[in-house]
C-alpha cells in the first residue's frame, strides 16, 4: 500500500518539465474520482489540462534533429512541413484508453505522431481518385498500374507486390526547430447532443433530440506542425509526396475531418523554399536536357561531316589525277565564293590555298594525256581563280599564259 501511495504522491505533485514523460503521466497519472459522480467530466478535463502544460522533452528535440539528419538526402527523401492552421488533429481517437481520450502518441518519447500507414493509405486514395478522373480508359489503366507499383498491389489479387515508396511516420515539430507551437497537446471538448435519438435511429417514440441534455466529452487533441517525408528515388518520392500533401490539404487526416479537424497547410516560408528548390530542380533537369540536346545536335553534325568527308575521299580516289586536281580547285573556288567578306584571315588563307593549287596544276606534267574536255575545264577554272586573286596584272598575265601553253587543245587555237 505504501508503494502505491508513493506513486500517487509522485503523480499528484508532478510539475511539468522537459525531462518528464507527458504521455506516461496522461496514461497513469489520473487522480482519484471526486465524490460526486457529476464531477467526472471536470476531473478528466483537469487531468487533460495538466498534460497539456508539459513542454517538449529535450531528448525528443534531439531525436527529431537526428531524424531530420537521417532524411536530409534530397535525392532520396521528399519532405514536407505541414501546419494545422486554425484546426486541430484527432488521430487514434478510437483506440482503447481508460479515459476514453486517446490520441496517437509515440510509445517512447511521448509526443504525438501520425502513423506512416495512415499517410500511405491517404496518399493512395488520392492517387486512385486522380486515376479515375482520367478521361481516356487506357490512361486510367496505365495510371492504376503506376499506383500498384508505387503503393503495392491490393490484397485481393492473388500475387501481391510490396509498394515502392516508403511513407514514414510524421514527426511533430518542436518550436525550436521551426514548428508553430511550443506544446503539442491541447484540451478539447467534443459534445454529443442527441446520443439517444441517433442510437434509436429516430424511431417513433424516441424523444425529440432537443429534449436531451448535451453530453460534453473531455478530449486530448493535437496542435502545431508535422514533418512528413516520403522515401524513394527522387521523382517518384516527389510524386508520392504530392499526392500525400494534396490529400492532407484537401481531405484532412484522422478522425472528425468532416467537422474540420486534421487539415494541413504548408507553412508560407517553407512553401516558398520548396517551390524555389523545385524550380531549381526543374531548371537543373531542363539544363541537363538542353545539354543532351546540344550534344545530340553536335553528334549528328559530326556524323554528317564524317559521312561527307568519306564520300569526298571516295570520290577523289575514283578520279584520274587530272580530274582530281580540277575538283580540288573547284572546291576551293566554292569555298571562296561562299565567303561573305573577301577580306580577313579566312579569305587570305583560301587565297593562299588557291594559289598553291594553281601551282600544283601547272606543275602537273601529264596534261597532254588528258581529255580535251578536262583540259578545257582546267583552263576555265584556273582563269577564274586567277581573276579572283590579288596578284598584279603582270603576274596574272604570266600565269594565264603558262596555263594556256600547257593546256592548249590538240587542234590548237
Amino acid at each position, binding site marked *: 500500500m505504501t*508503494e502505491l501511495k*508513493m*506513486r500517487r504522491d*509522485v*503523480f499528484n505533485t*508532478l510539475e511539468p518539465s522537459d*525531462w*518528464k*514523460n507527458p*504521455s*506516461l*503521466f496522461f496514461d*497513469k497519472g489520473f487522480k482519484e474520482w471526486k465524490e460526486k459522480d457529476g464531477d467526472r467530466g471536470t476531473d478528466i478535463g483537469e487531468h487533460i489540462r495538466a498534460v497539456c502544460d508539459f513542454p517538449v*522533452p529535450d*531528448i*525528443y528535440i*534531439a*531525436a527529431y534533429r*537526428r*531524424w531530420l539528419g*537521417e532524411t536530409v538526402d534530397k535525392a*532520396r527523401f521528399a519532405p514536407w512541413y505541414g501546419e494545422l492552421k486554425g484546426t486541430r488533429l484527432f488521430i487514434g481517437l478510437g*483506440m482503447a484508453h481508460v479515459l476514453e481520450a486517446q490520441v496517437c502518441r*509515440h*510509445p*517512447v*518519447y*511521448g509526443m504525438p505522431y501520425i*502513423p*506512416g*500507414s495512415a*499517410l*500511405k*493509405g491517404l496518399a493512395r*486514395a488520392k492517387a*486512385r481518385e486522380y486515376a479515375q478522373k482520367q478521361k481516356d480508359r487506357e490512361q486510367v489503366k496505365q495510371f492504376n498500374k503506376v499506383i500498384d507499383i508505387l*503503393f*503495392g498491389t491490393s*490484397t485481393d489479387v492473388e500475387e501481391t507486390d*510490396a*509498394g*515502392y*515508396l*516508403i*511513407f*514514414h*511516420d510524421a514527426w511533430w515539430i518542436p518550436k525550436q526547430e521551426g514548428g508553430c507551437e511550443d506544446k503539442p497537446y491541447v484540451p478539447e471538448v467534443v459534445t454529443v447532443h442527441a446520443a439517444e435519438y441517433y442510437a434509436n435511429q429516430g424511431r417513433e417514440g424516441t424523444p425529440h433530440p432537443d429534449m436531451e441534455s448535451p453530453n460534453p466529452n473531455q478530449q486530448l487533441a493535437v496542435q502545431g506542425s508535422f514533418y512528413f517525408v516520403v522515401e524513394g*528515388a527522387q521523382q*517518384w518520392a516527389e510524386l508520392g509526396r504530392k499526392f500525400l500533401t494534396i490529400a492532407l490539404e484537401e481531405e484532412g487526416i484522422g478522425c472528425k475531418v468532416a467537422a474540420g479537424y486534421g487539415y494541413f497547410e504548408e507553412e508560407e516560408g517553407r512553401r516558398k523554399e520548396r517551390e524555389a528548390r523545385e524550380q531549381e530542380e526543374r531548371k537543373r533537369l531542363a539544363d541537363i536536357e538542353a545539354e543532351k540536346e546540344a550534344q545530340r545536335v553536335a553528334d549528328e553534325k559530326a556524323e554528317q561531316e564524317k559521312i561527307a568527308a568519306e564520300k569526298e575521299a571516295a570520290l577523289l580516289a575514283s578520279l584520274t589525277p587530272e580530274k582530281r586536281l580540277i575538283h580540288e580547285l573547284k572546291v576551293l573556288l566554292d569555298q571562296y565564293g561562299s565567303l561573305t567578306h573577301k577580306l580577313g584571315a579566312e579569305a587570305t588563307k583560301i587565297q593562299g590555298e588557291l594559289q598553291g593549287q594553281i601551282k600544283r596544276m601547272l606543275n602537273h606534267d601529264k596534261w597532254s594525256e588528258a581529255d580535251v574536255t578536262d583540259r578545257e575545264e582546267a583552263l576555265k577554272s584556273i582563269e577564274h581563280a586567277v581573276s579572283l586573286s590579288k596578284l598584279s596584272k603582270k603576274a596574272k598575265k604570266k600565269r594565264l599564259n603558262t596555263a594556256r601553253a600547257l593546256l592548249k587543245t590538240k587542234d590548237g587555237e
Partner: protein
Amino acid sequence: METMCYYIHALTALHAGTGQGVGVVDLPIAREKSTGLPIVPGSGIKGVLREELNPSNAGADDLQPCEDSDGNTKEKEQCWEALFGPTAQDAEKGGFAGALNIQDAQLLCLPVRSVYGVFAWVTCPFILERYRRDSKQIVGTSPDWGMPCLEDGEKAWVTDDSKIDEKEKVFLEDLDFDVLKNNGNVNTLADKIAAAIFPNDDTWQRFFKERFMIIPDNVFSFLAETATEVRARIKLKEGTRTVEKGALWYEENLPAETLLWGMIGCDRSRSENHTGTAKDLMKHFQEQIGAEKGLQIGGNATVGRGRVRWVPGQLGA
C-alpha cells in the same frame, strides 16, 4: 575464423516478425525460444547487408541499377559473392556457402517509458552476462568490467549521472524500483555501451548514461513481454471511409530507440573465383560497411518501419 560484433539502434519501430501469431497480437515479433527475449533473426540482417553491399547496385537505391565506372567491378563482385554466397541461379552451376555468418541480433537495452527522463534504457544481468561472453570471444580476454550484482526484488542500478530517478525511486510504466547508485561497474558498463553505439556523439552518449538502468531478470522478462509497441492497423474501404470487414489487426514492434547487438563470424573464402583468407574477407567487409550505415531491417518497410543505425562494433571495445 575472424569475429566482430555489431549493434542495431532502431530509429523507428522495428518489426522483425514471425508472420503469424496465436494470441491477441496478430503479427508478433520474433523471439528467442528459450528465453522469450526479442531477437532480429540473422538471416534478415544478412539479406539486407547483402543487398546494401551488392556492387552492381552500389549506392543506388534507384529503380535502375547504376553503372560502375571503375574497372574492378568484377573483382568486387567476386569478393562480394565469396562473402555472401552465390545467388540461387549461380548456385545451380556450382554452389558454395558464403564466408560470413551473421548471428541473430539480441536485445541489449529496451526503451521503457519513465516518469522522469522520458524513457529508460533498461537491461538485466542475464543479458549483460551474455553480452560479456560475446565480448570475450572478440577480445580473447575477459572484458575489463565486472558485473554489478543484483538481488531479486524491485531494485535497479542506475548510473551516477542518472536522470530517471527521483527520491531514490524510478517509475517505469506500472513498475516502481528502489534505486541503487554509486557502482563503478555500472558506470563503466554504461560508458562502454554508450561509446560503442554512439561513437563520436557526446550528446547521445550523455543521454544514454543518464537513462541506463539494470533491473532484475524476472522483471525484465515481464517488460520484454509487455513493453513492446503494439500498433493497431485498419484498412478502410475505398469510397466509404469505413473500416473493411475483418480488416483490423495488431502488429507488435520493437519500439524506436531499442538497442540490440549481434556477432559476425568470417571464414576463408569457399568460392572458386576468390582465394581470400578470413582476415582478407573480414577486412574487405569492414571497409565496405564503413563507420555506420542507415539500413532498413524487418517488415512493413513501406510504412516507415525498421529504419535503423547499423553500427559495426569496435573490436575489443
